[in-house]
C-alpha cells in the first residue's frame, strides 16, 4: 500500500539528527498537509506551519533519532492545531476542499471513480473529531504502528487502540452520510 511506502520513506537513518534547515526543507510539505487535514483554514496554514517549526526548533535537541521523525513532527502539528481550534474565533467547522487533480485528458471511468472516492475520503476525514482524526492520519494514511503513535502523542496504548476503533467507526459513518447526501447507495 501507498501508506506503507510513505511510512518506510520517512524512517530516518539511525542516530542521524537532521539539521533544522534540512528538516524544514524536507518536511515542510508534510507539516503543511497534516495541518490542512487537521482542519486548519488555508488562511492560517502559513502561520501555523511557522509556529510548528518554531516549536520543533526549540525541541530539536530532544528528538530521539532512533525513532521515526514524522510521528514526532505530527505531535507538534496536532498540538498546534488543537490550540488553534480551541480559540473561539477558530471553532467554525471548515469546509474541506479536496485537492484539484490536474489532468488534461478526459478521465477514464475508473479514474473518475477513484478521484470521487478520494474526495469523499478527504471530506469524511474532516468530519471526524480531531483526536480520532490524528489516529486515522497516522495509522491509516501514513502507516505508523499504534505503539509508535501512542508514544508520539503521549497517550496510553489502550487509549490509542480504542481511539482508532472509534475513529474508524466515525469515519465510516461520515462516508455513509456523505454518500446518502449525494444520493449514492
Amino acid at each position, binding site marked *: 500500500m501507498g501508506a506503507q511506502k510513505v511510512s518506510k520513506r520517512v524512517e530516518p537513518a539511525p542516530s542521524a539528527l537532521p539539521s533544522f534547515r534540512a528538516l524544514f526543507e524536507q518536511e515542510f510539505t508534510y507539516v503543511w*498537509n497534516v495541518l490542512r487535514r487537521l482542519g486548519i483554514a488555508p488562511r492560517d496554514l502559513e502561520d501555523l506551519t511557522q509556529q510548528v517549526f518554531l516549536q520543533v526548533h526549540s525541541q530539536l535537541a530532544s528528538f530521539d533519532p532512533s525513532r521515526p521523525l514524522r510521528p514526532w513532527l505530527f505531535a507538534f502539528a496536532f498540538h498546534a492545531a488543537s490550540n488553534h481550534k480551541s480559540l473561539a474565533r477558530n471553532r467554525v467547522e471548515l469546509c474541506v476542499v479536496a485537492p484539484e487533480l490536474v489532468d488534461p485528458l478526459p478521465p477514464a471511468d475508473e479514474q473518475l471513480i477513484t478521484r470521487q472516492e478520494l474526495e469523499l475520503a478527504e471530506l469524511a476525514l474532516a468530519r471526524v473529531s480531531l483526536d480520532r482524526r490524528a489516529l486515522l492520519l497516522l495509522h491509516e494514511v501514513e502507516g505508523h504502528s499504534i505503539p509508535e503513535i501512542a508514544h508520539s502523542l503521549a497517550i496510553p496504548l489502550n487509549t490509542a487502540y480504542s481511539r482508532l476503533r472509534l475513529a474508524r467507526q466515525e469515519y465510516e459513518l461520515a462516508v455513509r452520510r456523505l454518500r446518502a447526501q449525494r444520493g449514492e447507495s
Partner: protein
Amino acid sequence: MTPLEALRALGPGEEPPVEAKQRVAGALFTALDAAALAAAAAPKPLAPASLHPAPVSLLGGVAGSKVLAVAGAIWLMGGITGAALYRVLRPTEVRVVYIDRPARIAGSAALPLEPDSAPSGTPANSAPSGAQSTPPASGVARSKPSFVADSPSDLARERALLDIARADAAHGDPTQALNTAEQHRHLFPHGRLAEEREALAIRALLSLGRRQEAEARARAFRIAYPHSFLSSALESALLGP
C-alpha cells in the same frame, strides 16, 4: 474501493504553493536569527534589588557546618578545647540589606528628592554591582530629572512587557503583540529596551498587513538606531511580500 481503502490511498497530500513555503521560511529564519542575535546581545540579568541575603558559597557553607558540628559536639561534652574551638570558628554574622528605591520619573514632583548630604554608610554603596543606573551620591546629579526610567525594577518591567509581546508574536497573535508593544511605548517612551520594542512593533505591523505603517516606523527606527543589530533582520522582513 472501501472507505478505509480510499483513506489509505490518500497519500502524502498536495504540494503547498512555492511562495507559501518561501514566505514561511523567510519569516521563520528571520525570527530565529533575530532571537539568536538578541540572545547573544542580551545583557546578563541584574541582581534583583531585594531583601534576599547574598548567596554563600555552597562548599564553604557545608564545610563550615561540619567543623561547627564537630566543635559543637566537643563543647557539649564539656571540653575546654571544644569551647575554645567554637569561639574561634564561630562565624561573624554579616547581614546585608538591599533597599528598593522608587524610580524617579521626569516631572514626578510627588517623589521627594533625597537630601544632598546622605549620611555615610547608606546602602547606596551596598547596592548590587549590576545596578549601574544607580545615581552617584552627588546632590547635583540626584536633582537632575531623569527621562529614562532606569531603575532595575523598571528594566525588569520593560523586559517582562517585551517578553509578553514576543510570546504573543510567537503564538501567531500580532495584534496582541502590537498592543503590548504600544503599552511599553506608553509606559517607557525612552526605555532602555525601546529599540527592541520598535523592532517587535514593526514586525507585528507587517504580520497584520499594515505595511505602510511598518515602513514609516522602520524609517524612524533607522534614524534612531542607525547601528542597530536588529536592522538586518528588519530589512529582511520588510523585503518580504
